[in-house]
């Protein structure tokens, strides 16, 4: 008996599950044949759903066909309501990266401060505890009112939702740097700046990256909802627009794209995480 590698076996099972799912899907949505003998003109008028008992839900073949269409020309721009899915995703990714980048700039220094100073830790704790559980979308009206720009408001919402996991993890990582490493830094007279850069940052980096990975996941979850609210551009807006167009096929396509982009973002962070991780 030949041994197959575990990865290969897992891949085969995954493929099998996918095929079973697609077949069941296709079977579930396909019509039960011609319901009645209808006048062809009339049948055409009422559509396949009514005339052949076909489900309004698109099957995998329909979705596959539109998917191919989207992938073949992702960047076309036919005006505000008809942009390629690549353009929409690019808008969403840009918003996430800007909001997330700003959050990194604020959360990591602030997390450092909280982690280094027990006083600041206690002083800021009540604020963090109250602000953290607020749904990022609850900030939306306030953001729209103060910023007066829907796109910037979406970026603000991403900023505020990415902030907390990064800040808390940074503070935790910094506070739990091993005492002996700090003692080494002291005996080597590294000074506070070099200690922060050469000892605390690399020691806390895996924990910080864990927070950053959680944050990018949350940011990608939130951008879809935020764009549904602010409208205009982005994959979230695209989903809502296609729902208004009653194009379930496009909605399913968009769901697929959201999932793939989310996975790519997460894997990028996982890659960074591996780069900074160390074995003790």
């Amino acid at each position, binding site marked *: 008996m030949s041994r197959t590698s575990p990865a290969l076996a897992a891949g085969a099972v995954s493929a099998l599950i996918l095929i079973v799912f697609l077949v069941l899907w296709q079977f579930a949505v396909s019509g039960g044949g011609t319901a009645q003998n209808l006048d062809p003109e009339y049948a055409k008028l009422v559509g396949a759903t009514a005339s052949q008992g076909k489900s309004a839900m698109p099957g995998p073949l329909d979705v596959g066909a539109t998917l191919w269409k989207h992938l073949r020309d992702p960047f076309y721009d036919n005006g505000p309501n008809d942009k390629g899915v690549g353009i929409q995703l690019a808008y969403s990714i840009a918003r996430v990266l800007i909001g997330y980048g700003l959050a990194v700039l604020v959360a990591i220094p602030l997390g450092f401060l909280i982690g280094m100073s027990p006083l600041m830790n206690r002083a800021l704790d009540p604020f963090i505890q109250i602000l953290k559980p607020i749904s990022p979308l609850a900030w939306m009206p306030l953001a729209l009112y103060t910023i007066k720009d829907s796109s910037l408001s979406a970026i603000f919402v991403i900023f505020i939702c990415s902030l907390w996991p990064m800040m808390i993890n940074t503070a935790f990582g910094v506070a739990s740097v*091993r005492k*002996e*490493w700090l*003692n*080494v830094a*002291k*005996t*080597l*007279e*590294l000074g506070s700046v*070099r200690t922060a850069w*050469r*000892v605390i940052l*690399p*020691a806390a*980096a895996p924990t910080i990256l864990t927070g950053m990975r959680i944050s990018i996941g949350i940011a990608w979850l939130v951008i879809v909802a935020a764009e549904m609210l602010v409208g205009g551009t982005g994959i979230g807006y695209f989903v809502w627009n296609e729902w208004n167009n009653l194009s379930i096929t496009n909605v399913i396509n968009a769901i697929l794209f959201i999932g793939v982009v989310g996975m790519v973002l997460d894997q990028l962070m996982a890659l960074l995480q591996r780069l*900074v991780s*160390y*074995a*003790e």
Partner: protein
Amino acid sequence: MPPALIKVEGLARRFPEPRGRGTLTVFEKIWFDVAEGEFVCIIGHSGCGKSTILNILAGLDEPSEGVVIVNGQQVQGPSLDRAVIFQGHALMPWLSALANVELAVSSRHRDWSSAEVRAHAERYLDLVHLADARFKKPSQLSGGMRQRVGIARALAIEPKVMLMDEPFSALDALTRGSLQDEVVAIRSRSRQTTFMITHDIDEALLLADRILLMTNGPSARIAEIVENTLPTDRVRSEMHKHPNYYPLRNHLLDFLVVRSRELAGGVGAPDDPRQVPVHRPVAGAMIHALPSRDEKSAEALRLAVPTR
């Protein structure tokens, strides 16, 4: 005797008691000197505050009373002049062995180029026979190799004083032996002033010029100082053949097993803590000379020493 490089004067460490109004004294009235080029070991049971004394010497901890003077200056905070070898290797796990040493070297010589830093660090890794493993991370090294990197890191900054906190206690006996040989070899090359905590009597006899014996805590103090009467060119495998070996070893063992407990809390301590009795156990002597002028404490010690 060369001038004292380290002077420890009246060191004490007290904690406020958890609930009571009083204070708990871990150790007090600690006076001793370490001469330039001397290797001094301190032996005592856990809880007597040895590690705290070492941390105070390093500048990582502060005494409740007393001062430490190194090279004519009072110790205030850590310094590159006092390198510490920690019990756990305390290497940065994200840096290679070489980078760990380089971090120390670049901190000592801020104006050096990276090539100079690297050459200097490599020289010291070579000294502890780790040239081949220089690009490995601590997690890829054995316990003994990690501690060698720690030694290389401490030596590379060319400190005035080396402070070792039970550096080999976490290692297996074979590895410990080879690292002790390493320290002997390094000692024979440079008369590095060293203060070391140990639990291991043979380690103390192999390495130390003088051995400070601490009583049990609380209120621990240095009960006596034993001068190592073995010749200075000691070899681990030959040491036990010297006639002075067993008198020394028995004296230390007897202290650890019996007298450290009996003398706890300042029993039989001399009135002047600066006058710690000095012992020179040699073959043939029954009771060792006590230079103390205090008859009572001498009597107490004499009672405590079982005469063979």
